[in-house]
């Protein structure tokens, strides 16, 4: 996603001189196309995320559209108060680009896991959050949103090869993408983990289940009416995200269900425990937290067949 995003950004920057790219010394083999095409509009600000967000605030106040690039954890968590008091408080068009949602930097360990970014960003009013599911959608999401007012957080992945079957790069900020219809269970997925969710839906369908799938790509502001409509027509909804259970998509869907008085049960699949200690590949880490295709199928079958299981807060 990150390379598709930067390639698209280069195209946009050809036609709009307000676009700048700042990086916190990350993006080797990713940011070069922009840096080489627009050397005067590219800044490696060093390993200094707080200053990078402050710079972007000052640049945006003077009319520029700065994109700031780093890993998800560093750019969101280290710079968080600068995001809050800078682009959010001033309503400025700073584009915060975080790479590595979930366990994409799995072997790098806990400091590099993007499992809490959406939760902390979602509480900020006026901050748009876009979490593309694959590289095609990352490109179309950027084209559809870069010009809008106010700050945006793009939660990107590293994978520039795989796609989510059936998505075909579609993106509409007003409407989440429906990839399958079903009346027994609705799966809602956020980010690159949507690929495993799509595979799980296929396997469940092959086993005779009617399972729907929606990719929630614009997390904030949430497409409330679309979600309400979809959630009103199923008995069980299952959220899938490479993120802590608290604060992300599972929380969002639970809020919609509770506030709209819907009757469907919500099952949340995500990172339920702090992922410290043993580490491994992305697939290993995802499996450890029930986010492999097999894990998702198992969770879906339990949700389809059984009564409500113990919830997150019971443990």
């Amino acid at each position, binding site marked *: 996603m990150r390379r598709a995003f930067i390639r698209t950004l280069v195209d946009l920057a050809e036609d709009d001189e307000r676009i700048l790219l700042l990086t916190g010394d990350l993006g080797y083999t990713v940011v070069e196309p922009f840096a080489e095409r627009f050397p005067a509009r590219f*800044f490696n600000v060093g390993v200094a995320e707080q200053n990078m967000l402050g710079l972007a*605030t000052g640049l945006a106040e003077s*009319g520029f559209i700065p994109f700031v690039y780093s890993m998800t954890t560093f750019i969101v968590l280290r710079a968080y108060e*600068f995001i809050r*008091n800078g682009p959010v408080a001033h309503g400025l068009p700073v584009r915060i680009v975080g790479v590595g949602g979930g366990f994409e930097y799995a072997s790098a360990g806990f400091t590099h896991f993007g499992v809490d970014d959406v939760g902390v960003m979602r509480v900020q009013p006026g901050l748009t959050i876009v979490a593309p599911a694959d590289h095609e959608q990352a490109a179309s999401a950027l084209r559809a949103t870069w010009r809008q007012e106010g700050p945006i957080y793009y939660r990107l992945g590293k994978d520039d090869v795989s796609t989510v079957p059936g998505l075909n790069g579609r993106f509409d900020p007003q409407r989440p993408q429906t990839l399958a219809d079903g009346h027994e269970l609705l799966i809602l997925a956020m980010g690159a983990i949507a690929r495993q969710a799509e595979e799980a839906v296929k396997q469940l369908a092959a086993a005779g289940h009617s399972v729907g799938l929606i990719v929630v790509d614009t997390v904030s502001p949430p497409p409330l009416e679309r979600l309400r409509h979809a959630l009103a027509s199923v008995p069980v909804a299952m959220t899938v995200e490479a993120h802590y259970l608290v604060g992300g998509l599972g929380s969002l869907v639970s809020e919609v269900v509770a506030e709209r008085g819907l009757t469907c049960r919500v099952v949340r699949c995500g990172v339920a425990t702090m992922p410290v200690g043993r580490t491994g590949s992305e697939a290993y880490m995802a499996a450890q937290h029930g986010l492999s295709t097999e894990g998702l199928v198992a969770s879906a079958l339990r949700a389809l067949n059984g009564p409500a299981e113990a919830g997150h807060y019971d443990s």
Partner: protein
Amino acid sequence: MNKNVVARGRSSVTDRDPATSLPALAKQIRLAILHGSKRANVGHIGSALSVTDILAALYGQVLRVPAPDDPQRDRFILSKGHAALALYAALRARDWIDDETLAGYCRDHTFAGVHPDHHLPGIDFSTGSLGQGLSFGAGAALAAKLSGADRRVYVLLSDAECNEGSVWESVMFAAQHRLSNLVAIVDVNGQQALDHTHRVLDLSPLESRWSAFGWQTHVVDGHDLEQLTATLTCDAASAAPHVVVARTVFGKGVSFMEGQIKWHYMSMNDDEYQLALEQVDR
């Protein structure tokens, strides 16, 4: 509030009214600090009084701001946002806010809180969390350079604010990119919320630290208006950003506040208020 409605000052205070000399402007700001603080029963008096002469120099002469919404204006950022009452008084003197706004300091439904908010005309950036303003200013200065504009950017920091690591991130960036249109002013009043700065994290000699990072340093008496105006109009064509280390007295102008830690947070009783007014207004 519509930022444009009350934006009508088109020249500096002293140009517009020759009777308003810089010392008179400084006195006007000090009196407004005392009035506002007493009326609202809110502290931060000592910090506001220590930057009063710096703000008088900036708003009376140095800043080139035809109107607060002019895109080509010089930018000013009060990074030590807790001195906002002094800034409101300066904005009032420029006619960018009205008496009602100034009198509404810390009242319900006001834009004039303890820390400045950009919804108020003349406030370029909201501040209040120390260590952020210089990064905003570096961005604004970079923007001016990229646009080929001659805008200057002034950022007023406190000495204790330099405890924040993020300040030094911005210091390094501004030097690396030769942001000579950026002027940091450090209000060295030697005090912070709980103690004297040298007893908390001793940063002296502060000017050596900034110059070691590649900044052009200027040391001034932060209450000498002539020295301030001469120094603050820095050479924007130089090769380095500028820092003006302004030696100030915390609580300047009110004898019983000068150098006293308690006037970081305390507000005045009636007797203290009268005495302070007499000392400032003589």
